[in-house]
């Protein structure tokens, strides 16, 4: 029967992946993380982080829509609108759904609407970061440390 320390070491070995190892998991974590906020973290078994990311990014997006923020389109003449579209596209499925359903405003006329547009932009950009974080965790580029294994003991 394995001891608790042995089980902990085994779990650690399973959780850590070799950098550069060929696998489709990192790419899928990146895609899923983009499509659904926190989806990549869920795929990797990081349920708390995934839930927090989902709630935060969805919250930003919904507040943006609630404030009648503008959903940018790539076909616009203004370069800033094109950049805004690229940023908002980071929200993945939420952005595509909002576009299809015609949610959000087409023009900005009051200050709160401008705030709403920024909320939509933040949601997209943060979701890019979140998806890349999931990818980094999957490849092993980002260390996956738990509180109990990084306690450094100073030896006098």
């Amino acid at each position, binding site marked *: 029967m394995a001891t608790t320390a042995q089980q902990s070491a085994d779990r650690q070995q399973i959780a850590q992946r070799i950098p550069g190892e060929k696998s489709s998991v990192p790419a899928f974590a990146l895609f899923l993380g983009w499509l659904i906020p926190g989806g990549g973290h869920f795929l990797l078994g990081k349920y708390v982080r995934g839930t927090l990311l989902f709630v935060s990014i969805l919250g930003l997006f919904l507040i943006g829509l609630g*404030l009648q923020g503008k959903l940018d389109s790539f076909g616009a003449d203004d370069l800033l609108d094109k950049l805004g579209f690229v940023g908002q596209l980071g929200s993945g499925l939420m952005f595509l759904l909002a576009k299809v359903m015609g949610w959000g405003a087409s023009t900005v006329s009051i200050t*709160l609407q401008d705030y709403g547009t920024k*909320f939509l932009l933040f949601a997209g950009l943060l979701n890019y970061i*979140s998806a890349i974080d999931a990818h980094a965790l999957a490849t092993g580029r980002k260390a996956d440390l*738990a509180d109990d294994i990084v306690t450094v003991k100073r030896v006098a």
Partner: protein
Amino acid sequence: MLTHFSAVLLAALFISIVFGITQRAQPRMMIRFGAFCFVMFVGITIAASWLMWAIKH
């Protein structure tokens, strides 16, 4: 209805959570960095608001 200040608080909260999770590897450090980001976002906003008020008056 969301006021300007409550919009700032919500944005700071959500952005800090994402920054905390993605920019640190250890849960304890995630919480610390998230809290730091939140305080900085809100603190700098309040400071900038008073600065703009002072410039206007």
